[in-house]
């Protein structure tokens, strides 16, 4: 227990450089990862589907490209796992829900096309809390994923499978989606880097929607530099996603070459309490590390931060209730036969959705209903605006903010399973960022209780990824 999952791996950039130069082959890289999967996947259950044969064909094609004297791209031979809520043409995409049973999308998500064009090798589709609703991956219809650092503990969620895949060496990198912390929290619990970029930084086309105004795709990696590489590849405007940002993004690989001298690092003085002492201790160490690297620590207030959780649990379920209304058993996915069409709809949805998904559909439907809208959804939108404005004021005084990512290290299976609200509290520190549309990332920063990984969260304002990455890289360097 608590032993490191494996030795420090080479970076994705190093793998791509070696494959591009012919120093190694994509096939060799892939076989190492497939061997790791063969070894521990039965225990971890990071994947809903391992794409062994497709990955081998893909690796062979990349090697052929190199042999022919062409460049397969900046992620040549880099293995990647995709959260199973990203559409892959002809490959089942389940959202870890029974309702999508048997569905094979007729199209690829934009990120999938982008990754392929960059030379990445997709090794599989990873487990998640059903429709990304949860913080432990226990809400998967296909059984939970286990934390590679301690298999009696959860990997976090909802992107638990992707976090575990990178932590266990099943893939070099992974993609997840973050609606209220679903990349950052599992990254913290699994001891890897996880980034939720600015809303609109990465195309959502082909990401099965949970809460459309909050969902954002981002990477899991072993290093800040790899996260920068991944975002440089998958970031950018997509004409198929009207909410994607039209301007090109500056290179984050360039940004992390700079230090943090003179950077103003904010401490939120009115941050909601609740972080465990071991987590709090690592946060203090992070402030110290950045101060030592030349940054200035400043106190800021974000008064509405504390209302984030409440607003989120009205806005996200409201959007989810609309997004998930289409699953009716008629055109695709599960169908439970019944006496007539209306009974079929009911039986299909009753059997196809898990408890947490049903709870959120009901919450959201209620929050949007006539007579309740103003008191619930309407008020939550006002809180959302307040949070955004409070953050903007804080960012006039600080370039980045540091908070814990998760209030605790990885917890044991079943610890919060019976208490939805205790589970919701896992995302106290991550949710306000989604409501503001801002970027945030979790950086592994040592260990806490029982030697389990602790993540520190770096937050920044809209499109301030370059400065966020500088601070994250400085934290990472301070541990070296």
């Amino acid at each position, binding site marked *: 227990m608590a032993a490191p999952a494996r030795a420090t791996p080479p970076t994705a950039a190093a793998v791509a450089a070696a494959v591009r130069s012919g120093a190694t082959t994509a096939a060799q890289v892939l076989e190492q990862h497939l061997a790791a999967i063969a070894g521990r996947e039965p225990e971890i259950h990071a994947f809903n589907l391992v794409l062994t044969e497709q990955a081998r064909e893909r690796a062979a094609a990349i090697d052929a490209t190199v042999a022919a004297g062409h460049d397969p791209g900046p992620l040549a031979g880099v293995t990647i796992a995709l959260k199973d809520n*990203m*559409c892959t043409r002809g490959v089942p*995409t389940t*959202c870890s829900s029974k309702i*999508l049973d048997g*569905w094979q*999308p*007729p*199209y690829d*998500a934009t990120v999938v096309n982008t990754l392929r064009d960059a030379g990445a090798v997709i090794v599989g589709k990873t487990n998640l809390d059903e429709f990304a609703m949860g913080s432990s991956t226990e809400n998967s219809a296909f059984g939970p994923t286990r934390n590679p650092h301690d298999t009696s503990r959860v990997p976090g969620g909802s992107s638990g499978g992707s976090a575990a895949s990178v932590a266990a060496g099943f893939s070099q990198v992974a993609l997840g989606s973050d609606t209220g912390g679903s990349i950052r929290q599992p990254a913290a619990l699994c001891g890897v880097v996880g980034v939720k970029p600015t809303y609109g930084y990465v195309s*959502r*086309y*082909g*990401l*099965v*929607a949970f*809460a*459309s*105004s909050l969902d954002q795709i981002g990477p899991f990696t072993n290093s800040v530099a790899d996260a920068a590489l991944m975002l440089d590849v998958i970031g950018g405007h997509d*004409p*198929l*996603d*009207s*909410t994607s940002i039209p301007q090109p993004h500056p290179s984050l690989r360039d940004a992390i070459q700079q230090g943090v001298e003179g950077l103003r690092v904010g401490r939120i003085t009115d941050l909601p309490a609740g972080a465990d002492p071991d987590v709090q201790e690592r946060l203090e160490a992070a402030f110290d590390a950045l101060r030592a690297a030349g940054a200035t620590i400043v106190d800021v207030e974000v008064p509405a931060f504390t209302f984030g959780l409440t607003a989120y649990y009205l806005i996200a379920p*409201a*959007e989810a*209730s*609309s997004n998930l*209304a*289409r699953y*009716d058993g*008629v*055109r*695709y996915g599960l169908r439970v036969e019944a006496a007539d*069409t209306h009974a079929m*709809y009911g039986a299909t949805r009753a059997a196809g959705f898990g408890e947490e998904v049903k709870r959120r559909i009901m919450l959201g*439907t209620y929050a*949007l*209903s*006539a007579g309740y*809208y103003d008191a619930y*959804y309407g008020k939550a939108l006002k809180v959302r605006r307040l949070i955004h404005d409070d953050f903007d004021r804080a960012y006039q005084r600080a370039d980045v903010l540091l908070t814990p990512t998760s209030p605790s290290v990885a917890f044991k299976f079943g610890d919060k399973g019976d208490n939805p609200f205790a589970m919701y509290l896992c995302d106290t520190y991550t949710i306000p960022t989604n409501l503001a549309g801002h970027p945030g990332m979790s950086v592994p920063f040592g260990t806490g209780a029982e030697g389990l990984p602790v993540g520190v969260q770096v937050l920044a304002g809209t499109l301030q990824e370059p400065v966020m990455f500088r601070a994250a890289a400085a934290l990472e360097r301070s541990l070296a």
Partner: protein
Amino acid sequence: MSAYDGLPGDWELVVGLEVHVELATTTKLFSASPNRFGDEPNTNIDPVTLGLPGALPVLNEQAVELAMRVGAALNCTIQACTFHRKNYFYPDMPKAYQVTQYDQPLNVDGHLDLPNGVRVGIERAHMEEDAGKSTHIGGSGGRVHGATASLIDLNRAGVPLVEIVSRPDIRSADDARAYVSELRSILLAVGASDAKMEEGSMRVDANVSVHKPGTPFGTRCEIKNVNSVRSVGRAIEYEARRQIDLIESGDVVRQQTRHWDEGDGRTHTLRTKEDADDYRYFLEPDLVPLVPSQEWIDRVHAALPMLPAARRARLAEASGQAADSEAVTSVVERGQDDFVLAVGQAGGSVARALVYVKEAFAESPQVPAADLAALTLLEPAGTLTATQAKAVLAELVANNGGDAAAIAAAKGFEAMDNSALEGFVQDAIAADPDAWQKFCGGDGKAMGALVGLVMKASKGKADGKLVTALLNQKKG
């Protein structure tokens, strides 16, 4: 004469119309699938149309442009706007919500002037996507009730619509009909839609209530399934009488959505206010606000063609006819007013050209304006009689033009002198003394027989007006 001249008591009708119009775009409102009527079912589809998980909408610029044209033509303010989700479950709505505009529509606060001068306010003209088409098999009258199977065609799902909502300014069934006709003409003129009610590219819902003038409006019912201009009037008339009967028998009107049945000529309850859906509107998070630039708005206004009302006024002035006369309205509706005016520019008589075009140009023949101009001058100059001119016109139409004078000459048409005419009239009276007696006794119909004899004898060359004058003169 309107059926509503007979509205019982001193009841007043109050009508507002909601008209859905399919925009004539190349592709759908949010995807690249073709917007085409009549294709094989479920062929114009894609992940967005099917509402597949992960698919996202992208707003069609051409649809926005056409919707702005509608707004400009209806004198609306064109403004920054947003899209909402209207959540409801129906099998032909694959996402289980319709993307529409709610509290911030594209076009607001306009008006439409009817040919008779009545001004109808336009509350809004907003954009939204159409649903698919359901066909119910095995029930009665194609309705879902009692059907054994329902077929869904999603070719129509996602087709761009503009919903034009009038204010409750309409006070008669005739004005409601005129509103729909005029709106249709405007939509055709600006090229926004083919506006075919029979194909469903223009659909009318009528909000109908009755009250006594000076009192608040009554409870309204919304009438759906009104599929022709004629049914607009019939449905409103039926519904108003139904409501008046209810009130006068001591009952009350309940707010309902009602279905017009063309077959039995009645409206039937579709749903009551109590079981209306709660649409749970919220801002569509997959789209961003639409903010048309002033430059774009200006460009749309500048490119607007002359609208039917202005064209009628122009033609009325040039021809001396009333703007709402049948000749002026029908010629403008057929888009032949430019041709009539061109006849005037070619030196012809606009008044005569209007009559000729209205009567003989339904099939849009390609007659050069100069050729028709020549004809319009022959008749008033007395060179041709009206009957002869008609024959020459038919020849011009049949041959797509020609020299009117030459045609007249070839037909042997020439002006007759009155002495010859006098002889023909004498002969006619002698040939049919019965008719003459009846005519002298005041039977107008008998005159027709005598004129006919004169025409026959003169081989159609006689001027009918002169013959009539001579007969009256002889009667004394």
